[in-house]
């Protein structure tokens, strides 16, 4: 009797850990079967295109969650770097403005990281404050207007990265996929990568084992900022414009995807690839919703709803776990014997 229960439990655990893959499969199948015009090349290309930016940024954000921190500033970093990438083009060309934008993102991440580790201010406060500061900077730089390129320039850029190499995949998407795979491999298959998980799993233990937790924390914030920078640039180059609210919706989106994908803010678990799949899932979901004729609004609602459901689920699980923590196994055994 006990054995069967064990196997069932193991099954459930496995499913729960990898739930994002099941959810994705479900959503994809659902849309393929029921959404009009879903399964055609053109549509699927749209799906992959729009997620390149978010997927990139989500890499960095996932790492932040893995080490148990929070970065609320990524949205504004995206906008910031997009603005830099575009507005600096006339002075130093794309060859200059793009790297500059990316480095700028990394620098902001560095500041965040230093404030969290050295000044020992909680990441919630640091990144919330940074978010506000950057908003001010952005609006000051742009005078409140969106930045956009003249039509010739715009065309040139979009063209290159928008060229389809394989079906569904443009260079932009390829870049995103390559980075996801690279980071995923790094975090899962290298010693340094796994150390990030340990920092999030139990900081004290990590430190006692000789891992420089401050260094890892700073590096993670730098990566987060840099990835946000890359994402911003990718977006800017596609649309040749940087609307000023670009980053704000991204923040919500990325937090959702990260949590739905299974990376919790508590740290030590989850992964970059799972977040990626979560983003794919959300994109497919959105796409399908639009195909159903339901419009933008529904998709925002559903994404939020899924997030709320996932957060609530994790909270309830933790709540139940608390109650049974510390049981003496032999007493439970005796109890089962008496019951049988």
């Amino acid at each position, binding site marked *: 009797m006990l054995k069967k229960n064990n196997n069932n439990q193991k099954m459930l655990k496995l499913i729960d850990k990898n739930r994002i893959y099941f959810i994705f499969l479900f959503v994809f199948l659902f849309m393929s079967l029921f959404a009009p015009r879903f399964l055609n090349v053109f549509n699927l290309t749209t799906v992959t295109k729009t997620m390149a930016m978010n997927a990139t940024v989500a890499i960095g954000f996932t790492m932040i969650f893995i080490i148990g921190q929070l970065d609320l500033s990524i949205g504004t970093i995206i906008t910031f770097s997009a603005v830099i990438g575009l507005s600096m083009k006339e002075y130093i060309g794309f060859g200059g403005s793009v790297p500059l934008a990316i480095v700028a993102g990394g620098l902001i991440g560095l500041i965040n990281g230093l404030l969290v580790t050295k000044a020992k201010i909680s990441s919630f406060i640091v990144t919330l404050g940074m978010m506000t500061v950057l908003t001010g900077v952005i609006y000051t730089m742009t005078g409140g207007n969106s930045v956009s390129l003249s039509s010739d320039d715009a065309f040139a850029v979009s063209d290159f990265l928008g060229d389809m190499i394989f079906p569904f995949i443009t260079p932009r998407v390829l870049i995103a996929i390559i980075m996801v795979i690279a980071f995923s491999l790094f975090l899962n298959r*290298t010693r340094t990568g796994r150390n990030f998980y340990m920092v999030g799993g139990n900081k004290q233990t990590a430190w006692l084992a*000789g891992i420089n937790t401050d260094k890892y924390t700073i590096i993670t914030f730098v990566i987060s900022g840099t990835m946000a920078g890359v994402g911003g640039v990718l977006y800017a180059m596609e649309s040749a414009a940087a609307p000023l609210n670009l980053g704000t919706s991204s923040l919500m989106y990325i937090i959702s995807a990260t949590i739905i994908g299974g990376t919790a803010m508590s740290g*030590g*678990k989850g992964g970059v690839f799972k977040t990626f799949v979560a983003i794919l899932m959300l994109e497919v979901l959105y796409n399908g919703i639009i195909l159903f004729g339901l419009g933008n609004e529904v998709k925002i609602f559903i994404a939020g709803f899924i997030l709320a459901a996932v957060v609530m689920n994790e909270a309830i699980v933790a709540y139940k776990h608390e109650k049974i923590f510390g049981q*003496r196994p032999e007493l439970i055994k005796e109890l089962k014997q008496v019951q049988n």
Partner: protein
Amino acid sequence: MSSEDIKKEKSFDIALEMKCVSKEFPGTLAVDSVDFDVKTGEVHALIGENGAGKSTLMKMIAGSFNDYTGDIVMGSQKVDLFTPAQSKKNGIEMIYQELSLAMPLSISENVLVGRLPKKGIFLDKKKIAEETTLCLERVGLGHLDPNLQIEEISQHEGQLVEIAKALGNNPKILVMDEPTSALSREEVERLFTIIHNLKKQGLAIVYISHHLPEIFEVADRVTVLRDGKKIGTNDISEVTSELLVQMMVGKSVADFYSYNSHAKENERLRVENLSRFGFFHDVSFSALEGEVLGICGLSGAGRSELGRSLVGLDERHAGDVFLDGEIFKPSHMSKAVDNGLVYLTENRKTEGLALRLDVKDNTLVSIIPQLSKNGVYTSNDGDEILTGLIDELSIYPPDPTKIVGNLSGGNQQKVLLAKWMACKPKVLILDEPTRGVDIGAKMTIHKSIEALAKKGSTIILISSDLPELVSLSSRVLIMRKGRIVKDMRKEECTEESVLLAANGENV
């Protein structure tokens, strides 16, 4: 051989020696000029009551303190063990009572933390699994899947993983702090087999415990500490339980404590077959008005869990409780407090007091509902009660605006007690009421307990401080592994007999 030769031979065997070490905390001298040594291939048990200084002594060699005095010598060279890193470098590994594993990570990642084997830049998954399994085999867990998360294994298995992790660093000295408190019989046996093997491999093991039967099974030598001082070190063959208990407990300070029983005739509390699955089963007892009922047991016996379930903090799964003859089933602790049944926690810093708030806030918190009229609470109504309690308990400094976090341990404990005294409880469950408290405060608290009993409160005294337990209680219940195994009347209770019973002897 000349005595010098013998000495040389002995010092060759000694893995680590502590000479006249001391450690002071604000207000107490936790370790007082102790000499201690451990030899290769031996298990040296370190025993003593709670607060005797065992953990502090060992934390010293684990590098937890940078301000101990005295010398620590390894291999005839003095070493500085001021940080955990220094400790590890010298081949010392300590296994704490609380698990220090990372829950969401896998067994192998915990065991091999920071040194996961790699092939080129990538991790060598096969090697990781192999090495982890090797480490796990040393603790009898070779069958476990190294990829399981710590969250998924039992607490006992987690403890073993902790040991495997420590062993993975090939230590010369292994310190184990109360490793068996949450273990079943078979698990303890398994642990001892492991320890026996480690001995044969030349490890020097320090085994901290206050479970006497186990000491006799596993140790070669035993050192007794009391109040921070070393009482004696003996070969295990030279001692008996009674002798050890005598050393642990010392000359009774019974002269200080000669409290009378104030128990009345009527029954105040009756517990029938109370169970919280997995924590305590089938607990039955009754207590009279004005009686002080002691509960004694080793750590992990389920005493605190019993207290918490009685008061509604934790759930209960079976059985009934009657307060003054009526069924008592509080849905929430606030109901219990309303009915006069309260519980004083053993963890005053984390569960008992708000260290950031002042004495007044902390003392009056549980009677806020009583002091409020229609939801309005003017804390000044509590001033009288407050000053009365500060006075009665001699809380120092007698200033209600003092932040509790800045008070000494004894005074903090008094504030905690004051909180519950303010409720004028019918039943007051005390869990280790004088842990980490100086003698003077201890006495004051004891006097207050007696005064409470005199006024008619029923006191349930959960304590591992034997003199306190024995002198205050009119009866002592012995709890062992979740059950009540003995009910001893005052006449039968001496510190030795109680401790022996708690260890499962003479039951």
